C-alpha cells in the first residue's frame, strides 16, 4: 500500500494514454493502408513485361529486316578479312572463335544499331541497321531496374512493414514516456508517503518523528506544518507532563508544610514555656538548649514557607512586557549582591514586547540570574542576551561557572533536588512552572562562557495587542 498513490498515478496515465494511443494507431494504420493502396507493384510488373515484349518484337522485326537485306545481296557495311584477324574488334573475333555462322547483336551508341555478323569465305561480313534512336541497352537497363523494383516490392510487404514500424515506434515512444512518468509519480507520491508515514508514526506514539522539509510546493508546506505541529504538540505534551508532576509535587509540599507548621508551633511554645519555668540556677544551660531548638524550628519554618511558596498558585495576569527593561531592572538589583561578578548585556533593542505576567517573568529572571551569579562567583561573568525567535523572544543566560553534568541537566527542573549549598532546590522548578504558565518554557542550552546556559522563551504579543 506504500506506493498506492504512485501506482494509481501510473495507472491513470496508462489508462488515459492507451485509448488515444490506440485511436491514433488505428487512424494512422488506416491512413497507411489507404495510401499504400496506391502502390503499383503489380502495375509495374505488367508494364515492364509489356515493355519487354514490345521491345523484343521491335528487335525481332529489325533483325529479320537486317537478315533479309543481307540475304538480298546488300553489300556489307564492313568486312573483316581473315588475313587481318589480329586487328579485328573483340566482338568479331569472339564471333569467329565461336564457330557460329551468323550472329546478331545490339551495337553502336547505347545499342542504337543492330549488327549482323556473317561468316564468309573471306572472313566476316558485318551488316548494320540503325534503330532510329531506339537504344536497346537503355531499354535493357530500364527493364532491369523495373524488374528489380518489382522483385523488391514482391519480396517486401510494405503495408506490413509500415504498420509494424508504426506500432513498434509508438509503443517504444509510449514506453519511454513511462520512464519520466514513473519519476514524476515518485516525485509526487514520495513526500506524501513520507508525510503519511510521519503522521502514522506520530499517532503511534513516536513523538520525535519528523518528515524531511525543504520543499517549496503545497506538499512541502504540509510537511513543514506537520513538523511545526509535531514540535508544538511535543512541547505541549512536555509542559503538560511537567505541570502534572508539578501539581503532584505541590500537593505533597502543601501537605508537608501544613503538617510541619501544625507541629512546629506547639513545639516552639512548649520549649519557650520550659525555659520560663526553669529555676535560675539551671537557666543558663536550658536557655542555651532552647536557643538551639528554636533555631532549628526557625529553619524548619523557613522550609515550610518555601514549600508553601512552591505549592502556591501564582496569579497569572499577562500583559505587554519589555523584556530588556525587565532584565536591566533585575541586573540592577543583582549587581550589589554579587559585586565581584561582571555582567554582559547583549540585548536586541528590536526585540518585541512579550505577552506575559510581569511578576512571573521577573521571578524567572531573578532565579536564573541569581543562580548564574552564584555559579560564576567572584571574577566570573554572566551574559544575558535577547533576540526574537519566530513568534517568541528568547532570553539566554550564560555563566562562566563549572557548568552542569548530563545527569544534572536531565533532572534539573525536578523539585527538592539542589546542587547549591543554600536553598531548597525548588527555584528552577518554580521558574519553569512560571515560564510554562506564561506560555513559554525554560531549556538548558550549551553554555557560551564555559558554564551553564539557560534559555527562556516567551511568546510575543499578538499583533492586535501591540501598542500602535
Amino acid at each position, binding site marked *: 500500500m506504500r506506493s498506492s498513490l504512485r501506482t494509481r498515478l501510473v495507472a491513470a496515465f496508462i489508462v488515459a494514454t492507451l485509448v488515444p494511443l490506440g485511436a491514433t494507431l488505428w487512424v494512422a494504420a488506416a491512413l497507411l493502408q489507404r495510401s499504400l493502396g496506391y502502390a503499383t507493384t503489380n502495375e509495374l510488373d505488367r508494364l515492364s513485361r509489356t515493355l519487354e515484349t514490345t521491345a523484343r518484337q521491335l528487335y525481332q522485326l529489325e533483325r529479320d529486316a537486317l537478315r533479309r537485306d543481307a540475304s538480298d545481296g546488300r553489300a556489307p557495311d564492313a568486312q573483316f578479312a581473315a588475313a587481318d584477324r589480329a586487328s579485328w574488334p573483340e566482338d568479331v573475333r569472339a564471333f569467329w572463335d565461336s564457330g557460329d555462322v551468323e550472329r546478331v547483336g545490339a551495337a553502336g551508341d547505347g545499342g542504337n544499331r543492330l549488327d549482323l555478323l556473317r561468316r564468309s569465305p573471306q572472313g566476316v561480313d558485318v551488316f548494320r541497321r540503325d534503330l532510329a534512336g531506339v537504344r536497346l541497352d537503355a531499354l535493357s537497363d530500364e527493364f532491369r531496374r523495373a524488374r528489380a523494383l518489382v522483385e523488391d516490392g514482391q519480396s517486401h510487404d510494405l503495408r506490413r*512493414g509500415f504498420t509494424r514500424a508504426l506500432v513498434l515506434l509508438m509503443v517504444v515512444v509510449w514506453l519511454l514516456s513511462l520512464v519520466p512518468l514513473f519519476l514524476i509519480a515518485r516525485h509526487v507520491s514520495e513526500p506524501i508517503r513520507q508525510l503519511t508515514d510521519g503522521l502514522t508514526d506520530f499517532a503511534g506514539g513516536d513523538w520525535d518523528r519528523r518528515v524531511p522539509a525543504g520543499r517549496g510546493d503545497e506538499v512541502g508546506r504540509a510537511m513543514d506544518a506537520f513538523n511545526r505541529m509535531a514540535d508544538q504538540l511535543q512541547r505541549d505534551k512536555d509542559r503538560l507532563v511537567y505541570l502534572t508532576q508539578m501539581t503532584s509535587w505541590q500537593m505533597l509540599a502543601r501537605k508537608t508544610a501544613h503538617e510541619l507548621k501544625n507541629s512546629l508551633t506547639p513545639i516552639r511554645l512548649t520549649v519557650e514555656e520550659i525555659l520560663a519555668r526553669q529555676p535560675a540556677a539551671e537557666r543558663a544551660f536550658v536557655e542555651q538548649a532552647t536557643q538551639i531548638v528554636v533555631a532549628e524550628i526557625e529553619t524548619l519554618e523557613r522550609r515550610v514557607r518555601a514549600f508553601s511558596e512552591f505549592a502556591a498558585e501564582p496569579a497569572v495576569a499577562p500583559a505587554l512586557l519589555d523584556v530588556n527593561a525587565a532584565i536591566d531592572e533585575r541586573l540592577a538589583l543583582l549587581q550589589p549582591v554579587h559585586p565581584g561578578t561582571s555582567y554582559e548585556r547583549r540585548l536586541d533593542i528590536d526585540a518585541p514586547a512579550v505577552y506575559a505576567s510581569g511578576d512571573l517573568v521577573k521571578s524567572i529572571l531573578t532565579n536564573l540570574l541569581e543562580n548564574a551569579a552564584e555559579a560564576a562567583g567572584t571574577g566570573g561573568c554572566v551574559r544575558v542576551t535577547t533576540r526574537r525567535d519566530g513568534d517568541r523572544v528568547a532570553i539566554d543566560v550564560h555563566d562562566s561557572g563549572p557548568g552542569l553534568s548530563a545527569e544534572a541537566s536531565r533532572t534539573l527542573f525536578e523539585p527538592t533536588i539542589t546542587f547549591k549549598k543554600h536553598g531548597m532546590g525548588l527555584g528552577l522548578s518554580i521558574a519553569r512552572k512560571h515560564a510554562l504558565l506564561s506560555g513559554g518554557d525554560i531549556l538548558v542550552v550549551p553554555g557560551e562562557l564555559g558554564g551553564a546556559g539557560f534559555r527562556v522563551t516567551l511568546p510575543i504579543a499578538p499583533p492586535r495587542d501591540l501598542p500602535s
Partner: protein
Amino acid sequence: MSRATAPRVVTRSGLAALLVAASAVWLSAQAMAISTSGDLLRVTAPGFGVLDAPVVEQLRDGRSVRVGADLAVRERPDGAIVAEAHETFALSFDLWEERYAITRVGTPSLSISHLRARDAEAWCLAHLAVSLSEVGRIGRDTPFWIRLQYRVLNPERVPTSDEPFSLGGLIEILGRRRAGEAAPKTLDGGPFRLSALPRPTP
C-alpha cells in the same frame, strides 16, 4: 475373361505401359554419364541443368545469377569423397537475342555468350571436371558414385537505406517476406567404373 471386361483390361494395361514409358523417359532424362578428356573426368547429365524455372526467371528479369556447382566422386553413395571439383558460374541473359552468357568465376575466368539453354548447361558441365588420376587411385575396377549439385548463390541483400538505423531500414526489415532458401539441386549417378570407359588418349 468375358468379352465385356476385355476392353477395360486393355485400357488399364495401356495406361500402365504409358506410365512405365513416361518414367523411363524421365529417368533417362535424369541419367548421368561420364567421359574422359585427357586427365579429366567429365560428366554429362541431359535433363539436369542449372537453368531451372527460378533461375531462368531471374535471368529473364535482367539480373545475373551466380551458381555454385559441385562435383564429388565417392566410393559409396554416401561414402568419403575421392575427388571433387567446385566452380562458380555467373549467368546472364541477352533479353533481345534470348541467349545466355556464362562466366566461370575464378582464375583464370572464362566467358562465353550467345548460348542456347541446353548449350549453356552443357558448357557449365564441360567446365566442371575432376582429376582422373585422383579418381584412379581407387582402382579401375572399383565402382564409384558421383554427386552433381547446383546451388544458387543468393546475392547479399543490399539495405535500402545507407544509414544503419533509419526508419527506412526498420520498415524494410519489418516488411521483409520470408524468402525460402533455394535448395541445392542434386543428381546422383553410379556406380561407374573407370575400366568401363575407353582408355583416354594420351
